[in-house]
C-alpha cells in the first residue's frame, strides 16, 4: 500500500489551490462573514465545476475520480479548503452526493445529482439519529417526527438527507426543506462562515420516493457517511495546521528579540518541531483512514476514530501554540489566526469529541479481544 500522490492528483492540487487563492483569499472569506449563507453561490458553482463535489460520484452518474480512489482525491479538496479556511458545504455536498450515487433510484439521481454536481443545489445532511418514523402503516407514506439539532447548511439546503428510526430499523429519507412541517432555525457557531441550523420535523409526511436505499437497512450507509464526514474534517484540519505552521515559521523568522530572530531560540524551535510532528502524524493517519474507508476494511472505523481523536486534539493544540508564538497579535480580531482556530475547533468537536472517539476505540479494542 502506498499513498504517494499521482501526477493527476498533484495537478489537481495546484489547480484547487490557485482557484481558492484567487477567488476566496482570506480577505474575501472575511467579507462573507455577514452573508446569511457564509459564501457566494457563484463561487461554489465555480468550485463544483473544478470537481469539489464530484469525486464520490460514479462516472455513470456524472462524477468521477482522478485516481480511482475518490475519497483520496476529495481529501485534497478538504486540505486545500482548510489552508484558506474556505466556507462552502464541503461535507454535506459530498456525503449526500456519494450516498445518492451509491443507493438512489434513477429518478432520485436524476432529480438531485445534476444540481449538486453543478453547485446549484446545496444538500443538507443530518449526522445524528434524532427523528422517528411514527407512521409507516401502508407502505406508501411515512410520517417523520423529531429534530436534527445540528445540520450543516441546513438553512441553505433545498433538500436534506435524514436518518430516522422506526420499527423496521434505520431508514434514510431525502426530505425537501420546504415540505409542510419542517421548521428551520439558523444557529450561530464558532466558525464564522460555516453555517448550521436546527431542523424540526413536526409530523412531516413523505412518500416512498423519498426513501434512499432500503427501508430499515440504512445502518451501514449512515456509518459510512459518518466516517467519510470525519475523514474530510480531519483532512481540512491538516490543511489549516499546515498553513498556520507556514506563516508562524515566517513570522518567527522575521521577528527579532535581543538582536536575533525568534526562530533561533531553542525553546521556540522545539515547539515548532513538535508542531511539525503533529502535522505529519495527522496527515499520515488521515490518509490511512481514508484508504480504509474507501476499501471498507474492518479497521476503517478504528482508523477514522484514531484520526479524529488525534487530529482533533493536535489541530487545536497546534493553532493555540501558534497563538502563543505570535504573542499579543495572535489574540486580535485583525490577525487571521482566529479564523483557523475557529475552523479546527469546529472540526474537533463535530461528529464527536476526541474523548468520545477514544471511548469508541476502547469499545472496539475490547470487542476485538472477545472475538480473537
Amino acid at each position, binding site marked *: 500500500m502506498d499513498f504517494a500522490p499521482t501526477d493527476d492528483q498533484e495537478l489537481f492540487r495546484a489547480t484547487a489551490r490557485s482557484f481558492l487563492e484567487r477567488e476566496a483569499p482570506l480577505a474575501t472569506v472575511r467579507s462573507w462573514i455577514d452573508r446569511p449563507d457564509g459564501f457566494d453561490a457563484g463561487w461554489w458553482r465555480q468550485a463544483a465545476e473544478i470537481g469539489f463535489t464530484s469525486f464520490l460520484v460514479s462516472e455513470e452518474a456524472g462524477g468521477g475520480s482522478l485516481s480511482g480512489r475518490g475519497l483520496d482525491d476529495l481529501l485534497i479538496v478538504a486540505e486545500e479548503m482548510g489552508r484558506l479556511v474556505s466556507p462552502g458545504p464541503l461535507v454535506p455536498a459530498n456525503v449526500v452526493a456519494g450516498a445518492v450515487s451509491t443507493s438512489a433510484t434513477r429518478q432520485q439521481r436524476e432529480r438531485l445529482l445534476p444540481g449538486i454536481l453543478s453547485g446549484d443545489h446545496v444538500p443538507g445532511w443530518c449526522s445524528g439519529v434524532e427523528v422517528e418514523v411514527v407512521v409507516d402503516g401502508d407502505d406508501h407514506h411515512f410520517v417523520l417526527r423529531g429534530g436534527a439539532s445540528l445540520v450543516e447548511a441546513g438553512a441553505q439546503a433545498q433538500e436534506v438527507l435524514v436518518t430516522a428510526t422506526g420499527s423496521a430499523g434505520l431508514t434514510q429519507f431525502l426530505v425537501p426543506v420546504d415540505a409542510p412541517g419542517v421548521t428551520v432555525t439558523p444557529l450561530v457557531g464558532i466558525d464564522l462562515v460555516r453555517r448550521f441550523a436546527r431542523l424540526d420535523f413536526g409530523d412531516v409526511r413523505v412518500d416512498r420516493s423519498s426513501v434512499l436505499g432500503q427501508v430499515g437497512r440504512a445502518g451501514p450507509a449512515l456509518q459510512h457517511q459518518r466516517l467519510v464526514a470525519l475523514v474530510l474534517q480531519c483532512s481540512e484540519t491538516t490543511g489549516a495546521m499546515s498553513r498556520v505552521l507556514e506563516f508562524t515559521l515566517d513570522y518567527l*523568522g522575521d521577528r527579532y528579540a535581543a538582536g536575533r530572530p525568534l526562530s*533561533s531560540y531553542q525553546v521556540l*524551535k*522545539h515547539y515548532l518541531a513538535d508542531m*511539525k*510532528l503533529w502535522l*505529519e*502524524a495527522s496527515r499520515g493517519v488521515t490518509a490511512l483512514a481514508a484508504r480504509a474507508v474507501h476499501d471498507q476494511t474492518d479497521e476503517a472505523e478504528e482508523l477514522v476514530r484514531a484520526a479524529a481523536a488525534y487530529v482533533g486534539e493536535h489541530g487545536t493544540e497546534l493553532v493555540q501554540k501558534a497563538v502563543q508564538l505570535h504573542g499579543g497579535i495572535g489574540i486580535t480580531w485583525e490577525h487571521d489566526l482566529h479564523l483557523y482556530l475557529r475552523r479546527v475547533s469546529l472540526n474537533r468537536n463535530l461528529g464527536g469529541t476526541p474523548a468520545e472517539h477514544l471511548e469508541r476505540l476502547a469499545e472496539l479494542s475490547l470487542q476485538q479481544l472477545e472475538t480473537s
Partner: protein
Amino acid sequence: MSPPEEQRESVEQFARRSGEWLAANMPRLTSEPVHERRDDIWDRQRELQRMLWDGGFAGICVPRDYGGLGLPVEYQRAFTAESLPYELPFYLGTPTFSIILATLLDFGTHEQKLAHVPGILRGDTIWVQFLSEPSGGSDLAACLTRADRREDTWVLNGAKIWSSAAEACDFALCLARTNWDVPKHRGLSVFILDLRAPGVTIEPITQVNGNHTFCQEFFDDVVLPLDALLGEVDQGWTVTTALLTHEREGVGGSSPYVSGRNLLAPGSTVRTNPAAVLARSLGIADDPVARQLVGEQRMSDLVQRGLVERVSVGVRTGSLPPSAAALLKLYTAGASVRRTEIAATLAGEGGVVWSPGDVETQERADKYLIRQADSISGGTSEIQRNIISERVLGLPRELAADRDVPYREVRQSSRARTD
C-alpha cells in the same frame, strides 16, 4: 560479480525455492519473538545464521566475491516474506547485518571484506559499533577516545559506552580521534577492533530494571595493525555518517542485508491492544477513565502506523528530506513513554506492590521505571527536535562553540580530558 540476468532464477522461482527450504530446515515460530536476553541467545543466533549459510541463503544481496548471492534487493524481500513464520537470527539483523556489514561493504578494502564478510555470513562473528562515550552524550563527534600512530601500528586508548550486548560480540567498529589539530569532525577515524585484543575490557551495565542490554568498554594501549583502519585516516566522520544512515535503514526495516522480520520496525499491523488486555484482566474494562487510556493506546499505535507511511513516502518522493526520519524517532519515543504510563496507571495499587513471583507485574513496573530509555537512546528527543527544526524546517542552527576550532582547544566536561 553477480550472475548475468538471463541465467538467474526469477524472483518467483527464488521465493518458491526459499519457502520450500525454510519449511524443511528452519524451526517454526511458536509465539511472538520477544526481546529476551537469555544466556544462550547469542549461541542460538550463530547457529541459526550457520543454517542459512549452509542452505545457501546467507547474504542474499552481498556480492558473490565475499560469500553472498549477489542478487538484487527484490530477492531479499521475497525471502523475508517467505520467512515470516520461521525463527531466524533476528538479533543479528541490527547491528551486525544492517549496520556493520553494510558499512564494511561501503568502505572496506577488498582484503578487509575478504577477511570479515564471509565470517559474518557464516554466523562466526557478531559485531557491535563503539560510538558513544561516557563524556559525549548525543554529540558523537565529540569523541575523546584516541588512536595514535606508533611505528607500524595504531594504539587505542579511551572508553566507550551504550554498546548493545558487546560482551557477546567478537568485533567492533570503533570511532577514535586521530588528529587533535583540526576541528571536531575532521580528525576522526574508524577502526576494526578485535574484542579479544589485549587491553580491551568490557563491562556490562546494570540498568534500572536489572537487565544488561548495554556495556561499557575501556581501551588501555590496545595495539591495532595498520589495516584495522576502515576508510581513510581522519575521514571517520564520513564513515560514521554512512553507518548512521544504515542504522536508520536497519531500524526502519529497509536494509537490504537483513533476513527475517524486523523486531525494531515501528508501525506494526498487530490488532491486539495491550491496554485492553490489561484492563480486562484487571476487571476495569468498564471504568470510564480506564477506557480513555485503552482508547488512547489504540490511537497511538494507529497514528504511528500512519506516520511511518507518511514519512517513508515523503522521503521517497522528496516532499520530506531524509532527516524527517527524526519525526518518527520523536513520535515513537513519546509513544513509548505513554505506553508504559498507561500500563502503570491501569495497574494501580497492584502495579506497585505484588506477590513474589508475579513476573508480569514486575516487568510492567520495570518498564515504567525505565520509560525514558527510548527518549534517550539513539539520539535524545531534544536532539531529534534540533534535527527537525534545523534540517526539516530550516530554522537557524544552534550556536556551536567547537565549530572550526582545533579540537585540542575545545573545552570538555571537567573530568573528561584524556590528553
